[in-house]
């Protein structure tokens, strides 16, 4: 049987790219101005869906990092820390509004640069980024209400390193609470997806922020390392892999730097036999194929109660067949391009590992574009707890399915991982939901839903998924001495 829905093909509905403005090359944003360093080192940012070069970006030197940190320090010691919370908040409100005004431009650039479907950039990444700025803007003059019996104070210069999967959203998650609490920022976007962070820097300039409050330096991992190790950085905030998170935690061990880490995950998404199955299938698909599976909280381990396994997998395969994989700029696209050649190689390697380990392999049948980096939505059934595809973070559209019989069994299996970022539970029974969500060793638990985010909702992990929270009231403490 084929799971293709070929009678229902949709006509192409490409988003126009004509109204965006991108420079041919970008300098670093330091002390309120874009500056082209003398060393002239640059690299290309490409569209992963086509291979086309979008812009050239500066490979920052350690001197560039020094200048950015110095500018952030001067801004912190100067105007920014003396400014009242109400005025700080108004700058953030202004930035949130201007981002909303330019939301279409940001969404298009985000999809061009990162490969994610325009529908997600437009409906998730950009509106959520603006919402984060708006939410934390309002905290700036209310901090004493957040921490009873305390007089919270800013930390100083925050070095912030963000990943390539939600480039603009992660920039907003980092910048918004840092500025609301009176810190200044040196931000390093990921090397494959720096464009929206640079566009955000333009917006910060346009919004009239005091120079040096936010600085953006671009480049590869050594630029991030230079920020982390810089003597004049007081706080490090990192989102990325657990491997790099460990290096960062180690490298600042001899300092008093404050640190928050939002690292990898291998979330269990658990479906009980009393769940609403069609709803659960939607949640499974959203859990693993959203953003091509480039999501640290992706529901990459599916646990299905044995009695409904066959029925659920049948429905899931059917649903996978209806996913539209391809041009990120098409408004109908569900699954876009893999972010980079390197990430595609990693995913393909894991798919090989899964086959060799003896799990049963399934991919949705669909046409893939010829240029660019692509991976079909992938499913492995008959996966063992010891398989690498059930233990390691793949960061791609690859789902590993296991079965269980009892509640006690699935709790053990789900928690049997060094990670603890997120989990999902599907059941129609209220008391089971409260038991399961309480038992999951994970920072975010979705019950009868998955992959939802909100600025008021704290996000972050247990165990090796990191420490500290981003979002909500709890996200403030990462940037304050309490």
């Amino acid at each position, binding site marked *: 049987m084929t799971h293709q829905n070929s009678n229902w093909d949709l006509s192409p509905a490409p988003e126009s790219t004509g109204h965006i403005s991108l420079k041919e090359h970008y300098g670093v944003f330091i002390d309120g101005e874009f500056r082209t360093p003398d060393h002239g080192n640059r690299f290309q940012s490409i569209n992963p869906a086509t291979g086309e070069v979008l812009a050239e970006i500066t490979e920052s030197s350690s001197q560039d990092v020094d200048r950015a940190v110095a500018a952030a320090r001067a801004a912190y010691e100067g105007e920014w820390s003396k400014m009242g919370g109400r005025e700080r908040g108004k700058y953030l409100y202004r930035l949130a509004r201007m981002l909303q005004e330019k939301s279409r431009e940001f969404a298009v650039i985000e999809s061009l640069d990162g490969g994610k479907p325009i529908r997600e950039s437009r409906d998730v990444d950009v509106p959520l980024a603006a*919402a984060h700025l708006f939410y934390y803007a309002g905290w700036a003059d209310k901090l004493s209400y957040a921490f009873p019996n305390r007089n919270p104070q800013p930390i100083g210069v925050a070095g912030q390193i963000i990943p390539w999967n939600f480039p603009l959203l992660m920039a907003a998650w980092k910048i918004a609470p840092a500025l609301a609490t009176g810190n200044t920022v040196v931000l390093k976007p990921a090397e494959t997806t720096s464009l929206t962070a640079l566009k955000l820097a333009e917006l910060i300039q346009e919004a009239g922020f005091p120079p040096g409050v936010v600085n953006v330096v671009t480049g590869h991992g050594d630029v991030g390392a230079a920020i982390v190790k810089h003597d004049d950085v007081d706080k490090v905030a990192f989102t990325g892999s657990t491997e790099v*998170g460990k290096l960062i*935690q180690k490298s600042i061990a001899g300092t008093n730097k404050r640190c928050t880490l939002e690292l990898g995950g291998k979330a269990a998404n658990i479906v009980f036999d009393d769940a609403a199955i069609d709803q659960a299938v939607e949640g499974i698909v959203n859990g693993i194929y959203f953003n091509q599976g480039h999501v640290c909280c992706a529901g990459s381990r599916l646990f299905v109660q044995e009695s409904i396994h066959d029925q659920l997998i049948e429905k899931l395969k059917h649903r996978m067949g209806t996913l539209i994989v391809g041009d990120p700029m098409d408004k109908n696209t569900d699954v876009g391009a893999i972010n980079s050649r390197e990430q595609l190689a990693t995913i393909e390697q894991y798919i090989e590992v899964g086959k060799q380990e003896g799990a049963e392999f399934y991919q949705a049948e669909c046409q893939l574009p010829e240029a660019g980096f692509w991976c079909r939505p992938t499913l492995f059934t008959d996966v063992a707890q010891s398989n690498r595809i059930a233990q390691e973070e793949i960061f791609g559209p690859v789902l590993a399915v296991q079965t269980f019989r009892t509640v006690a069994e699935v709790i053990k299996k789900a928690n049997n991982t*060094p990670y603890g970022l997120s989990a999902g539970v599907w059941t129609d029974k209220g008391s089971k939901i409260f038991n399961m969500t309480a038992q999951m060793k994970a920072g975010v638990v979705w019950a009868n*839903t998955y992959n939802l985010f909100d600025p008021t909702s704290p996000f972050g992990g*247990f165990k090796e998924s990191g420490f500290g929270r981003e979002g909500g009231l709890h996200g403030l403490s990462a940037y304050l001495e309490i």
Partner: protein
Amino acid sequence: MTESNENSGKSDRLEVLKTYKMYIDGKFPRTESARYYQPVVDGTSLGNVCLASRKDVRNSVVAARSAQSAWARRTAYNRAQILYRIAEMLEGRSQQFLDELLRQGVEAESAETQIAKSIDRLIYYAGWCDKYQQVFSSVNPVASSHFNFSTLEPVGVVFVVASRDCPLLGLISLIAPVIASGNTCVVLASENSPLSAITFAEVLATSDVPGGVVNILTGRVEELSEHFSRHLDVNAIACDGLGAELDTMIKEFASETIKRVKIYNQDWSAEAAANPYLIQDFCEVKTTWHPIEQITESGASY
């Protein structure tokens, strides 16, 4: 013989010496390594004290892990009553703690203050057991039809390196907030002043604290720090006054498993040294989402 028994006054009776053992899983074993050390105060030995080994650390972590989920599942009210019970038992043993603090070289006035504050501190945290959650949790007004709330959960197993200089109050000032939320812990007592830690274990053992919730080792932090900071089943570490070199080493090893490391260098006798933020330091924030059904015309109205 009969005569000598009848006449045995304080002066000529041979004192029964106490064997200072460790406290693991609710029992009082010697170190499995059978090693000892003799802390010396003003030229006088405090006795033969167990010199804990790597294996003792591992056994204690197993005990702490085994006890953790059941301790966390106790009601907050019950944990509060047990912390209060520890205070009651400590009060009744004040004289013994005074004697031992004096033997460990603490001045009499300071020792009395330390004991009084230790008792009060336990009562302070007993009161927090069923309140910190209300202070630190939140219901989050998400912009979609979901009920979303964040609560604190215990981080799990915490390794506590107790204060060197404040052997009773420093110890209790960390144990109480750590276990108040449902964590279990392994505590390394002050190397030079271990007596009050072991006697405190006797208090714990008679206070309805389940075995394994608090485990107390005696020994050398320099020898054990690598083992507890690299241990895969320790979630967090609390250190007090170890100095920069050891702090750095512990933090470096802790990074291998992303442990939470909290360094305290504070005066535990200060009132501000007791606060619910110490409970929060050993908690994780968990956020839970659930959809709210939206059916037109189904809303309640007056």
